[in-house]
């Protein structure tokens, strides 16, 4: 009940913020505009709607995750609202998990709205619905859960600006993570090669969640790949949350 109360309050804070609606409106506008762009292409209408739609969902979802995630804890400390919450009978890990769940709920709603719009628009253009689009959007959501956990982790010990820089860096490296292994092979120096491998193993491999291109090309999705991606996502997210809790447990709220 206590974690749910914190989560619900975090969700309520996000949905009462006009900025969230502006971002969502802009994203929906861009997804809608994909239909106009599709009209300019010859025989590629469906592909453009799906491609642009999924890319917009990822882009704006990531923006929301980073924008809200980096201030998740620091804002509570800066505005001193945490002084009223910590003295209540909720543990520090409970508070942090509640904040995380609240933001994940916000993302679920926003990604859900965007994903549903892409799904319906592509059905309109195609004349037939593509359920795999929803699976691709769902996996994108798991990747966003990791980004949110990264932002939350940085938020427990650094300023919003530094958190934003670090989270964006992790996001960019994470998206290119799959290429790191190929990149490592290009180096003769074994130390450098090992260093790149360590980076690959430590940083999140967000490429694992990109099923959009397969969906757009009409290729089948392999359930085992989906299962592995979800398991990897949940394990990585749990690791980040544990790290964030460890730091948060030792903090003084002066």
């Amino acid at each position, binding site marked *: 009940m206590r974690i749910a*109360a914190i989560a619900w309050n975090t969700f*309520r804070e996000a949905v009462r913020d006009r900025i969230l609606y502006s971002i969502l409106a802009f994203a929906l506008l861009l997804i809608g505009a994909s239909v106009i762009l599709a009209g300019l292409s010859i025989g590629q209408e469906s592909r453009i709607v799906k491609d642009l739609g999924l890319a917009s969902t990822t882009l704006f979802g990531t923006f929301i995750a980073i924008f809200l995630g980096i201030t998740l804890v620091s804002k509570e400390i800066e505005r001193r609202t945490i002084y*009223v919450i*910590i*003295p209540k009978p909720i543990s520090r890990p409970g508070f942090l998990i509640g904040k995380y769940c609240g933001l994940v709920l916000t993302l679920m709603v926003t990604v859900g709205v965007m994903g549903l719009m892409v799904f319906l628009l592509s059905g309109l253009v195609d004349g037939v619905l593509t359920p795999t689009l929803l699976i691709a959007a769902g996996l994108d959501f798991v990747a966003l859960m990791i980004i949110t956990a990264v932002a939350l982790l940085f938020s427990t010990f650094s300023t919003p600006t530094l958190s934003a820089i670090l989270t964006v860096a992790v996001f960019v490296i994470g998206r290119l993570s799959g290429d790191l292994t190929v990149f490592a092979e290009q180096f003769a120096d074994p130390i450098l090669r090992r260093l790149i491998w360590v980076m690959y193993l430590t940083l999140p491999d967000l490429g694992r969640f990109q099923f959009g291109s397969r969906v757009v090309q009409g290729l089948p999705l392999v359930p085992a790949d989906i299962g592995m991606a979800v398991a990897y996502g949940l394990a990585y997210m749990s690791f980040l949350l544990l790290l964030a809790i460890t730091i948060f447990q030792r903090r003084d709220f002066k």
Partner: protein
Amino acid sequence: MGPVIEVSGLCKDFRVGFWRKRVRVLHPLDLTVHGGEIFGYLGPNGAGKTTTLKLLTGLILPTAGSARLLGHDLAEVAAKRQIGFLPENPYFYDYLTGREFLDLCGRLFGVNAPLRRDRIARLLRLTELEAAADQQLRKYSKGMLQRLGLAQALINDPSLVILDEPMSGLDPLGRKAMRDIILQLKTEGRTVFFSSHILPDVEVLCDRVAILAAGRLRDVGRLAEILKTPTEDIELTLQRVPSGLLPALQALAHAPLLHQPDGVLVRLPDETRLDEALRSALAAGARVVSIVPQRQTLEDHFLREVQGAAR
């Protein structure tokens, strides 16, 4: 009643500056607060009052020492179930209404929905916030926020209420209302532990006080015990004093005589000298206007302790 707060050797260091130099802001503190009493925790700004309160409420972690609240160790979440806390200059989620905020606090204490509704209605009445209950907190004045802070501190029907500078920023009416509520909490059998530097309020409210200065406990006890010297000074005012008597009066006084419109003011250190001065004055034909014993106030004692700590 048994102890509600038991503090033993609790201390706190902060690390400051680029080199993370360790600075002790609270020296080992031993303190016991008994059930049902109003306990005043006094000290000038920077004395370590808020640090102590933050340690007791889990906002900061102790460097050493321990504390038990209502029989529970400080680190246990269970310790917080029966505690209400009002931070200094409270800040709340300004996107919530007063009612929504109290509901959130009730949920965090695990209070069920029907009981929450009843308590919220009662507390909004107690703090005179009924009319503003459905307004967002960003529209509340400072006094209203302070009253809402008190309401949230009472949402769990606590046995122990900890208040950090509850009178700070309130107008005289607000201070009077806060005093009345604190006294009501005592009559309901709750323990109130509050920090303050507004001494007249403390003098009126507290059963016991502790004085903290420069992070060290200087004194603790009942007001009557702390203000041990019942009279510090006796002021005798005389009229029609013959000029020949003035040197004798000056010899008995411990301060220069003051010639005032209503007579001569003689400040005497004790009752023996007062008797002597009275005998001499009456024999010389002077008229006694008044005899006023000057009692030591909490403020006098507080200033002495704090200045002593500064030296």
